[in-house]
């Protein structure tokens, strides 16, 4: 409570570039925003002054672990280094784009990617999982593709842990709610139980999209005078929890009545799959009409990410006017608008002569669309709010030139003990009674029980192209109805193997996923991965990570399969206990004709059963 009443409400001064230049010593809460002192100093260096509030918001979120890959970058390079030209032969787009795109023949291409939404799914399981599906689907849309299927890899605590009863049903209903309502068949996934996931479930969602080669769209803004259009949902105060430290500083003083609710902003986003379904159809009509030069989805880091990435991938500068952004809440600051993670939004670059046609398509689908800026000469990203310049930065410094850490890593001391603890000395069942008992225990174990409770909540029929979903080794969808051309996808990981040996464990995950795709009759052609680990600040975790990446990269090279994209999720831990190292590997395979896919399960009576391998 404030002792004296505030002065009659006057809006806090907008922190413009001018003001920042003239108040170099104003204290800024960079640490509360997750920026280290040297990172903050680097921003001041880049800009030659202190950042404005809005710039600070942008840098802090774009330089976060989630967006900048600052701890993982040095290791992920390995994927690039081990990928040969021959492995790249089928790739129309690879790592670095929203999602990798693979040529699957006959002029068709397929894009696929897996992403995590772990932490939000613990806070609010239903909405967290739902918006996780929504996010990966928009990544796929941003490539110019029609999303055609989803998969979900779920990891939670033991079945009888109290939180599991809250988290698992919520996550499953969220995945189903969003995917079903979008009309995307769910073609497979995993449900894994382990105590290390009890306070930190893993929700990894994969989406597959299909496009013709000529429809490939990349995220870049070029062509001076081209318009930047924001379309989809309005921008609200969702998911800006972090940035509210900025708001609280200025708003506390100006209007204490407003501060409490602002400060406690939930970082939870609510998904609106209906809005996203309409957005998909709207985007496809826009692509079909040739109305889009470049496109970018809005996910984590919202407009900060979309504008800086579009601008730095293009060949000019960009001007954005935040006053044009349709808002859902009153009095949002520039920092809040830029950081909002409101769902179901996309950002497109459109030539001036196509703007009217673009708007007409959006109106037909009842999608709000607004020109919020344009591509400019020069190389600066300039953002104005209430008539004043609040951001003026080289976009690459925000989007790509973030910090890179060589975090220390070391094989943990307990690794030897863990590996030495083999089953060799353990008693084994020998009598028929003991064996029967063990079989019963296995069958009854949650690890092996039927997944029907989960999969019955997911639509697998919609669009009429699913030729294999649960139960199956891999999900199979038909891409072309005429020729029967299709793709098979599987996702796999075994955290316990990875705990024992992260390098071999990652390779086993890859091998299992490849086997699952191959045993559906498809030829494996590409890999996506979702690397879920504990804190990168823990050298043992960092070692697991480095080993797993190296193992996966070498495994992919040995099999001749390129990694086309993926996602890193760090800080998955409860207190100081990290989750099992969990590199989830997704593999995509091609079938020339889905009618010749190998069905799951035993065939008709009289067929022989063969065991291949040792």
């Amino acid at each position, binding site marked *: 409570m404030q002792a004296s009443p505030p002065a009659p409400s006057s809006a806090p001064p907008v922190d413009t570039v001018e003001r920042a230049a003239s108040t170099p010593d104003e204290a800024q809460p960079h640490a509360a925003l997750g920026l280290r002192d040297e990172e903050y100093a680097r921003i001041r260096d880049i800009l030659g002054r202190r950042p404005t509030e809005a710039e600070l918001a942008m840098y802090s979120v774009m330089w976060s672990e989630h967006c900048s890959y600052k701890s993982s970058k040095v290791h992920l390079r390995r994927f690039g280094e081990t990928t040969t030209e021959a492995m790249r032969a089928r790739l129309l787009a690879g790592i670095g784009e929203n999602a990798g795109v693979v040529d699957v023949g006959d002029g068709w291409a397929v894009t696929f990617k897996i992403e995590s939404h772990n932490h939000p799914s613990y806070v609010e399981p239903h909405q967290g999982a739902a918006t996780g599906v929504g996010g990966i689907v928009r990544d796929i849309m941003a490539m110019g593709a029609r999303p055609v299927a989803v998969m979900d890899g779920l990891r939670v605590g033991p079945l009888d842990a109290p939180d599991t009863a809250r988290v698992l049903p919520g996550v499953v*209903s969220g995945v189903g709610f969003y995917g079903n309502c979008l009309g995307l068949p769910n073609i497979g996934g995993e449900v894994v139980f382990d105590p290390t996931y009890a306070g930190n479930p893993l929700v990894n969602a994969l989406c597959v999209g299909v496009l013709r080669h000529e429809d490939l769209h990349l995220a870049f803004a070029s062509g001076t005078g081209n318009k930047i259009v924001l379309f989809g949902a309005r921008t609200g105060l969702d998911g800006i929890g972090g940035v509210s430290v900025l708001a609280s500083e200025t708003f506390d003083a100006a209007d204490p009545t407003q501060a409490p609710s602002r400060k406690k902003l939930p970082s939870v986003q609510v998904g609106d799959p209906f809005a996203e379904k309409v957005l998909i159809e709207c985007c496809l009509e826009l692509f079909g009409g040739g109305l889009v030069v470049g496109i970018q989805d809005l996910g984590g880091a919202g407009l900060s990410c979309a504008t800086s990435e579009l601008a730095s991938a293009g060949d000019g500068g960009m001007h954005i006017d935040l006053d044009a952004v349709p808002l859902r809440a009153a009095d949002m600051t520039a920092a809040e608008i830029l950081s909002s993670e409101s769902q179901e939004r996309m950002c497109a670059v459109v030539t001036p002569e196509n703007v009217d046609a673009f708007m007409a398509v959006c109106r037909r689908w009842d999608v709000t669309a607004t020109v919020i800026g344009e591509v400019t000469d020069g190389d600066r990203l300039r953002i104005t709010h209430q008539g004043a310049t609040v951001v003026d930065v080289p976009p690459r410094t925000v989007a790509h030139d973030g910090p890179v850490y060589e975090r220390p890593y070391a094989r943990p001391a307990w690794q030897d003990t863990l590996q030495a603890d083999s089953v060799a000395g353990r008693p084994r069942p020998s009598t028929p009674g003991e064996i029967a008992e063990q079989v019963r225990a296995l069958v009854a174990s949650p690890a092996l029980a039927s997944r029907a409770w989960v999969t019955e909540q997911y*639509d697998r029929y919609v669009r*009429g192209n*699913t030729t294999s979903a649960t139960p199956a080794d891999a999900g199979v969808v038909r891409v072309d109805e005429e020729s029967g051309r299709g793709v098979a996808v599987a996702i796999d990981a075994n955290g316990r193997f990875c705990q024992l040996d992260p390098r071999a464990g990652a390779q086993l995950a890859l091998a299992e996923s490849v086997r699952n795709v191959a045993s559906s009759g498809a030829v494996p052609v590409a890999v996506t991965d979702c690397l879920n680990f504990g804190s990168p600040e823990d050298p043992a975790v960092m070692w697991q990570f480095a080993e797993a990446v190296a193992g996966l990269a070498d495994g992919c090279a040995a099999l001749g399969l390129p990694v086309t994209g993926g996602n890193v999720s760090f800080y998955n831990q409860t207190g100081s206990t990290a989750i099992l190292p969990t590199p989830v590997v997704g593999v995509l395979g091609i079938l020339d004709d889905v009618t010749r896919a190998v069905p799951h399960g035993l065939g008709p009576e009289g067929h022989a059963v063969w065991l291949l391998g040792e």
Partner: protein
Amino acid sequence: MSRIGVITFPGTLDDVDAARAVRYAGAEPVALWHDDADLQGVDAVVVPGGFSYGDYLRAGAIAARSPVMGPVVEAGRAGMPVLGICNGFQILCEAGLLPGALVRNHGLRFVCREVGLRVEADTAWTSSFTVGQEIRVPLKSGEGRYVADAATLDALEAEGRVVFRYTEPAPNGALRDIAGISSADGRVVGLMPHPEHAIDALTGPGTDGLGLFTSVLRRLTAAA
């Protein structure tokens, strides 16, 4: 060739499947748009499944009041064959073309599984089947529990307007295991399960669902 309209509302999902089923049956699918009160001279209409308007408010409530539904209700009352599948069934009930309502599944969860249905009435959409025949099609819905007051249910049964019944206890708790019903003249039919997902053994449980589409085609060509 008979022309069968397939309506797309914002949030409709199974329009591609319904159009494919129409094509497989040998008719020409005609895309109809929710905002356009023009049936383009079609001979019959399919209101497909999905989540029109996100199922917000009540499933089918908002779609039932769209421009295209005016002429659909009018034509349906005048005897044009109309089929509502899943969300389409919900829309036909909300539009007053069929009695009763569809509410949340009694288990409170979305249910996607193959179900057995017994065909119990000879209608414009079931004449390719014999009464009593059992077919297998997918069911996938969260608000598929058919309800109506007892008098309405009694009347439906007495008038032979229960077209499909689940062969096992209804997975959604539908009263009297009702999966689909018809108008008094047997030309407007609504059902929760998805015949359009059972037209090819490659992508569905079999081809039983095709029977609904060949039925109406027979009816249309016989009338012509």
